[in-house]
């Protein structure tokens, strides 16, 4: 045992928190029916080996590549269009929901008044509603409404992602140094001017990085929605998987890797420019 002088008073709580975390997570593992041993059963191993064995070499016939290019462009278009719509909805919502532009907060040391908090609640509620329904559910809904095709994917991404972007933008605006904006508001400037001069210079880098990351997520989401008929790479992967065409799946996964790498590079470039 450690002698009293060398004992860290934080040790007991740490051990207790560790034990508590295991106790809470264990039922979760049971509930999710996670059993890695299934992967090692001979039959399942053989199935997977056959499927992934067909991955090499990736499909590269001319016809297929043309198809792949079109599907990729469609996926990118769906993700980008959806993000633009989401952004257009998210920015005003974030400005309304954020405490950063509260005039009462500026003259009360950062604590907004009761009214100002009450008015922001419904906007937060709308943002929660927008993002609480997964995009795949919206996609299924819109596929019924506007028919099979990319439009359903664009609308689904616009709705879900506007909720996510709005919430995170509002929080980014609140998390940066509020004093520049407060000083401007206290010198008589309007709220939007105070935002552009006081908040945006500090928040731009983080907001851009989050937006590019969300665009990357939108590319992935548009692929998933392709499985339910919203077009693009997802629909092609779905078809190829059904036909057990491993080589085609491999090509499409490689395309995917390239897209994510592009998004990552873009994010780095923008952050470097803005940092």
């Amino acid at each position, binding site marked *: 045992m450690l002698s009293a002088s060398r004992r860290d008073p934080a040790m007991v709580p740490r051990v207790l928190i560790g034990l508590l975390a295991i106790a809470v997570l264990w039922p979760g593992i049971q509930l999710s029916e996670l059993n890695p041993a299934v992967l090692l059963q001979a039959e399942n191993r053989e199935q997977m080996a056959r499927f992934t064995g067909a991955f090499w070499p990736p499909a590269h016939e001319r016809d297929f590549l043309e198809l792949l290019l079109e599907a990729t462009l469609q996926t990118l278009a769906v993700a980008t269009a959806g993000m633009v719509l989401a952004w257009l909805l998210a920015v005003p919502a974030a400005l309304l929901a954020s405490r950063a532009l509260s005039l009462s907060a500026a*003259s009360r040391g950062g604590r907004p008044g009761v009214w100002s908090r009450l008015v922001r609640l419904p906007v937060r509620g709308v943002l929660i509603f927008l993002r609480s329904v997964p995009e795949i559910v919206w996609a299924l809904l819109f596929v019924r409404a506007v028919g099979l095709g990319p439009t359903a994917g664009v609308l689904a991404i616009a709705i879900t992602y506007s909720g996510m972007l709005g919430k995170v933008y509002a929080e980014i605006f609140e998390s940066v140094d509020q004093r520049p904006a407060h000083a401007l508001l206290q010198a008589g400037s309007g709220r939007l001017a105070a935002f552009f001069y006081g908040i945006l210079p500090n928040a731009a880098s983080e907001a851009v990085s989050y937006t590019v990351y969300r665009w990357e997520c939108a590319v992935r989401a548009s692929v998933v929605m392709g499985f339910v008929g919203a077009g693009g790479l997802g629909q092609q992967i779905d078809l190829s998987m059904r036909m057990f065409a491993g080589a085609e799946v491999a090509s499409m996964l490689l395309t995917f890797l390239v897209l994510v790498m592009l998004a990552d590079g873009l994010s780095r470039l923008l952050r470097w420019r803005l940092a």
Partner: protein
Amino acid sequence: MTSAVPSEAVIALQGASLRHGAVRAVEGVTLRIAQGERVAIIGPSGAGKSSLLHLMATATRPSSGRLEVLGQQPWALSTGARQCLRAQVGLVHQAPPLPPRQRVVTAVLAGRLGQWGLGRSLLNLLYPCDVPGARQALAELGLADKLFVQCGQLSGGQLQRVGIARVLYQQPRIVLADEPVSAMDPVLADHSLALLNRHAQATGVALVASLHAVDLALAHFPRVIGIREGRVLFDCPAQAVTDELLQALYANEQLVAGRGVDATSPHVQLPRC
């Protein structure tokens, strides 16, 4: 010299108090500041000098008492009318809150956001609409060469001068300054205070500055207000400030006797926070 009879009060406080929870920052202060008057506020650290200036700037609302700025009660006005009133009051912050990535030119021009519409404010972000104006304000403070530098690259004293330039560019009817020279060397501090005073005299605006350096306050300002524990201890012409008054103002029972600072010496360097 007796200061002229206050013709028109641009700031009038009557029994104004400000409490942060249980802390009483300003306690029943009554004072009037006339058009064109130049006033220094001195007092020990934590006496409530900044809180008093923020009250006058309509930046914080008094917990009780009455405040009139330019003949209007700011906290009885609608939000829009209060913003218009605020545009006529300029506050120089002790550590000017400027985004590190903002360029100096933008930070200075932001002084007139209260007067510009949103369209002009946004255009100004794309292309600075009054570079000569910003350059002139900075040149008076010896910073014209920093016009297109980012604020994050400036030192504390340079930032303070950018803050002063912003308020000069704002052209308010009342200039308030919260320890405006605390991060500057003695020569610069003297120059900047002289500039503020010259500017106030030339344009006839009221100037109220809180200062830690007693010698600067006495040298530059005709009227001196001593604040201790949130109350006005004395309010008199600079000539009437005696050693006894200063001793009473800065007396500190918490410091060990014999190691305290002698506040009466004219060249005393009080700790600046």
